[in-house]
C-alpha cells in the first residue's frame, strides 16, 4: 500500500523554486533513499513533505490525505517525524528531557524505555546534557526523539553527516533495526554508499528533478550512473 505520494511537486523559497516537478511514491514499510549532490533540492523535498515550505504546485498525499498545505505540526500529527540535518537537540536539556519534549498521544507512544531499547547508549547517557553528546550520540537521540510519537513514517536528513566511519556504521545498524520493525523511512543522503547499504530503493536527483530511480542492488553495480549523477568512485 502506498503511504506517501508526491505528484509533480514544485516548491522553494522567496527567490524562486528549488524543486521542479518531483514525483515519488513510497510503500508502507519501505526504506527509500533520496540521493544527489549538495544543493540539488533534497532537503527542500523533505521540507515540502513536512510543511516547512508549501508547494507552489503539485500535491502531496500521505495515507490518502492531502497534506500539501499542512503546517509542520499538522504533518507531525498525521504521523510524519522529521530528523533534521542539524539534529535539533536542546543543548541544555538532558537526554531524557529531550525525549520528553515531543508531543505524544499517550495511547500510541513509544515509551522512553522502548527508545532506550533501540539505543542502549542513550540509556547510559540519560542524565547527560544534549550539548555534551558526540555527533553520533546526538544523531541517535534525534532519531529516538522522532520515534517517540510512534510515527508512520520517519524522514532522515543526512543522518551520516559529520560522523566518523565507525559511528556511521552504528547509526546504520540502528536505522536497519528500526526498519525491521516495519517503519517506513525516507533517507536523504550525500553519502551514497551508506544510503545504498541501508535502503532497498533509491531516487537520484539533479537540479531539482528526479533523474532516475531503481533498486539499490542494481544501482550499486551501475558505476557509470553513480559516477555521472553523484560523482561516486566505487572501488
Amino acid at each position, binding site marked *: 500500500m502506498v503511504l506517501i505520494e508526491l505528484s509533480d511537486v514544485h516548491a522553494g523559497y522567496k527567490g524562486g523554486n528549488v524543486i521542479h516537478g518531483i514525483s515519488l511514491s513510497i510503500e508502507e514499510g519501505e526504506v527509500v533513499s533520496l540521493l544527489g549532490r549538495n544543493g540539488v533540492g533534497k532537503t527542500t523535498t523533505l521540507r515540502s513533505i513536512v510543511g516547512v515550505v508549501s508547494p507552489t504546485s503539485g500535491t502531496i498525499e500521505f495515507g490518502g490525505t492531502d497534506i500539501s498545505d499542512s503546517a*509542520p505540526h499538522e504533518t507531525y*500529527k498525521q504521523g510524519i517525524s522529521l530528523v533534521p540535518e542539524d539534529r535539533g537537540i536542546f543543548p541544555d536539556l538532558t537526554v531524557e528531557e529531550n525525549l520528553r519534549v515531543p508531543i505524544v498521544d*499517550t495511547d*500510541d507512544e513509544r515509551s522512553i524505555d522502548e527508545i532506550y531499547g533501540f539505543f542502549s547508549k542513550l540509556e547510559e547517557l540519560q542524565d547527560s546534557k544534549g550539548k555534551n553528546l558526540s555527533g553520533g550520540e546526538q544523531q541517535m537521540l534525534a532519531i529516538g526523539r522522532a520515534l517517540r510519537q510512534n510515527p508512520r513514517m520517519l524522514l532522515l536528513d543526512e543522518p551520516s553527516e559529520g560522523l566518523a566511519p565507525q559511528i556511521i556504521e552504528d547509526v546504520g545498524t540502528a536505522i536497519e533495526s528500526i526498519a525491521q520493525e516495519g517503519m517506513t523511512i525516507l533517507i536523504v543522503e550525500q553519502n551514497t554508499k551508506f544510503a545504498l547499504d541501508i535502503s532497498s530503493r533509491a531516487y537520484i536527483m539533479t537540479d531539482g528533478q528526479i533523474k532516475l530511480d531503481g533498486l539499490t542492488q542494481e544501482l550499486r553495480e551501475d558505476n557509470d550512473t553513480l559516477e555521472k549523477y553523484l560523482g561516486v568512485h566505487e572501488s
Partner: protein
Amino acid sequence: MSNKKSNPTIGPVEFSVVDESMQVSIGRLQTNANTLLLGLGLLVLLATPAVFSGYFVGLLVVAFIYGIFAISVDLVWGYAGILSFGHAAFFGLGAYLMGVITTELSLPSIGLLGLVLAFLVPAVVGLVVAGVLFSRGISEEYFTIITLALAIVASQAALILSDVTGGSNGLTEIPPLGVEIPGVMTYIISHNQYYFVVLVALVAVFLIGKRIVQSPFGTTLVGINENETKISSLGYNPIKYKTIVFGLSTGIAGFAGALYAAYSGFISPPLLGFVLSTEVLVWVLVGGRGTLIGPVIGATALYLAENMFSGMFLNTWVLMLGLLLVVIVLVFPAGIIGVFSIIEKKINKYLKDT
C-alpha cells in the same frame, strides 16, 4: 492503521508532556540572593508611603502601573520574540473602557467591573488580531508594522469618536475605585491607599507572569522564538502559542490602562498612541528584556528620572534623558537587571563562603 493519527491530542496534554523536562533548567535560576533582594525590595516599598511625600508616592503609583504595562510587553517581546510597536493601543483601550463605564454609570463598585472588562476586551482584541495575522502566515516583521498602524488608528479613533471618548479633550473626572454594598456602606479608595492597590496588582501580575514563563507553555514560547521550525516539527503549533501569549499580554496592558484611568481621573488620545508604545519598549530594554522584573525596574527608574530631569533641566531634559538612555544601553547591554545579576552573584558567593 490508516486512521491512527486522526484523533490527535491537543490542549492540556501538550503542556504536561514538556512539563518537568523544560522546567528543570529554568528552576535553577531562582537563587537565594534573588529571593532575598525581592523580599527586601518589597519591605521598602511597603514602608514608602509612611516616609515619603504624597507627591513622590503619586509618582510611584504611575510608575508601578507602567511597570505592569512593561511586564505585558516583556511577555511577548522578551519571551516570544514578538515586537509590538502598538501596545499603547491596548493600554489605552483599557483606560477608555474604564473611563467610559465609570463616567456613564456612576456607581462606586462599577470600577471593579471596569478592571475586569479592561482585561477581557483588550485580550479578545489581541487574540483576534494575532490569531488572524499569524494564521495568515504573516511574518513577525510585518506583524510589528501592523501593530504600529494599530496604535495610530486607535489614537485617531479616540479623536474621532468624540461622543464616547470626549475627542481631543479626553475624558475627565473619572472617579477613583470604590466598593459599595448598597444600603450598608460605600467606600472610596483614597490616593494613598491606591498605592497599595497598585502595588498588590503589580506583585500579582509579576508572579502570574513568572508562573507563565516558567511553565511548559512559557518554555515552549522561548523555544519557538529560538527555532520555530524545530519546535513545530516536534508537534507544537507555534501560531497557537504566539496568539495566546499576545492575547494575554494585551489583556494585562488593558488592565494597567484601567488602573491608570482610575488613578489619574483624566485620559486623552495620546494614551493610545505611538509615543507611549515606544516608551514602554525603552523601559523594557533599559530594564532588561526577558526578565519580567527588569522591565518593572526600567519603567519605574525611567519614569522617576523623567520627572527628576524635567525639574532639573527645564529646557533640555528630553535631551538629557536621551543621553542617559544611550549611556545605559552602551554600558549595560543586558539592562539594569544585568547590573543586579552581577551583585546577585557576589552575594551568592558571599553566602556560600560563610
